[in-house]
């Protein structure tokens, strides 16, 4: 990339001498068009997806006359006409949020802790060893996390609890490990961006390293660290495959952390292929998708809000 940049600048100066400004202007325009069209395409794609999902997701309320309140708070889900039709999605909304928050609870301390280790405690060693390890963790596909969860964590929980192993707890551990690299790498970037002056000032006042980390660096980096955790949560909320493999996908509300549960994503992936287009069941799954989209917008707004309050 840098190579082509170099050659482009050298050849344009070359032409600048040859024929004044005609082709330069044209090149300017060309570059502009390419960059602008990329930007416009992405914006159009985002708007298109949002519109499409909104239209599809509202079908069940408009066409099928589903009550929004009942949809969001109802406890029974039976959309395909077994017995009475019921469309309460609350257990899945609850499941998605519990998995997300529990995973964040698990990943935030671990991620921020290892970021501190990497940037403040063992700078060279940490960045040489821990950084690649975290990058590898990012690259592992979610189905592999799911498989490991299924063969290691589920039996482990089964042996140590009264339940069957497939549980909220298993989902939380798997998703927690999955979002750990996201949280760690963004936290590390945040900590690295703290100016050296602040740290020097703290040391100059006679603070120990731990006091500096705890009283100076962490508060200064707090908004960025919060962003890291929220980004991790956004990923956890949307994760489907790995969660579906270990959580048990029971449509009832979980009674304890070792009980089976279901998430919005796992219900969509489980049922989508079994529904016919335009049926109530299919439309309801789109409505679940709409909830996911709205939530991802909420996460983005939270991140924007936090970063606007950044101090450093």
């Amino acid at each position, binding site marked *: 990339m840098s190579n082509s940049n170099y050659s482009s600048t050298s050849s344009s100066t070359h032409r600048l001498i040859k024929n004044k400004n005609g082709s330069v202007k044209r090149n300017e325009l060309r570059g502009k068009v390419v960059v602008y069209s990329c930007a416009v395409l992405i914006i159009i794609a985002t708007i298109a997806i949002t519109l499409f999902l909104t239209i599809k997701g509202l079908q069940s309320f408009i066409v099928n006359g589903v009550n929004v309140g009942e949809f969001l708070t109802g406890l029974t889900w039976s959309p395909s006409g077994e017995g009475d039709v019921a469309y309460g999605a609350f257990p899945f909304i609850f499941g998605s949020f519990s998995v997300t928050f529990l995973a964040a609870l698990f990943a935030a301390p671990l991620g921020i802790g290892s970021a501190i280790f990497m940037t403040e405690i063992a700078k060279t060693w940490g960045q040489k060893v821990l950084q690649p390890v975290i990058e590898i963790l990012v690259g592992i596909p979610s189905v592999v996390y799911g498989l490991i969860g299924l063969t290691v964590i589920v039996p482990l929980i089964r042996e140590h609890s009264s339940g069957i192993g497939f549980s909220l707890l298993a989902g939380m551990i798997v998703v927690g490990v999955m979002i750990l690299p996201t949280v760690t790498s963004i936290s590390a970037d945040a900590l690295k961006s703290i100016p050296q002056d602040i740290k020097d000032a703290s040391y100059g006042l006679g603070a120990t390293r731990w006091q500096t980390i705890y009283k100076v660096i962490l508060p200064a980096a707090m908004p960025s660290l919060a962003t890291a955790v929220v980004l991790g949560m956004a990923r956890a909320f949307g994760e489907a495959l790995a969660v579906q493999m270990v959580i048990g996908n029971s449509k009832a509300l979980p009674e304890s952390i070792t009980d089976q549960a279901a998430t919005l994503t796992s219900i969509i992936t489980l049922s989508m292929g079994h529904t*016919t287009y335009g049926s109530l069941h299919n439309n309801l799954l789109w409505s679940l998708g709409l909830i996911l989209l709205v939530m991802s917008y909420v996460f983005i707004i939270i991140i924007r809000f936090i970063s606007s309050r950044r101090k450093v």
Partner: protein
Amino acid sequence: MKKFKSLAIMFTFVLVMGVLAACGGGNDNSSNGNGGEEGSSEAVSGSIIVGGSSALQPLAAAAVEQFQQNNPDAQIDVQGGGSGTGLSEVAAGNFDIGNADYFAESKEGIEASELVDHKVAVVGMTAAVNAEAGVTDISKEDLIKVFTGEVTNWKDVGGEDMEIQLVNRPDGSGTRATFNEFGLDGATPAEGITEDSSNTVKKIVNDTPGAVGYLAFSYFDDSDSNVKKMAIDGVEATDENVKTGDFPIWAYEHMYTKGEPEGLEKAFLDYMMSDEIQTSLVPEQGYIAASEMKVERDAEGNQSDL
């Protein structure tokens, strides 16, 4: 500059192509099969898409493989996606043949009168139970109690003192619909683990003491020390008992076409129904030949002798 320009052009081109491809799609994969009219012994050519039910996918794929050996010019694509997808896509004209585990009439949103049903096979299903539960023969009444959550311990239905763990298939699944209708007489099963694939159900039943789910016969084999077939009301879950109508839980595997099949569609469906497939490949893959059934069922589930 040249390098940058060509890069830019290529990049824009890729973007535009991507958008065009996303907008296009749809109707350009309709059947263009010819032949067929000249007699079924003639090799046919063309290309069609067969897709839907994951339960029927292995049989369809195996049949296509053999079919293409005889007809090297015929291009048949086999896809999964679920029975709902199969019905929707064939009704929309995107699949030439849509596979489904249930009658199109049983699903809303499908114009069943436009679709022509081809019952290519029958599949028997029964409850799959973990061996430690100690129950391999159950009355239908008790089976319903087990699956509706009325009893929660195997000792109440004559087994070991062990908690019952239900393993369900998702709403809308053909296997679930069939099991509920003919195994549970229409009762809705209680909540439990829900898994999308029969292989996962089998694995969970195998690994979890006291677990019970339901599987097509083809998923049971003798090596499964832990996954046991459940006999119902003393009737063993065997192909023979399904053929005579004694064992109640079975379903047709349907291949639907939009309108009467023609060309390559017809040639392939004729091949599916031929003795060559029905007597060898169908039983090999764990299905029951539709032609050997001594009873039949209509879309409402009414059974009658043939």
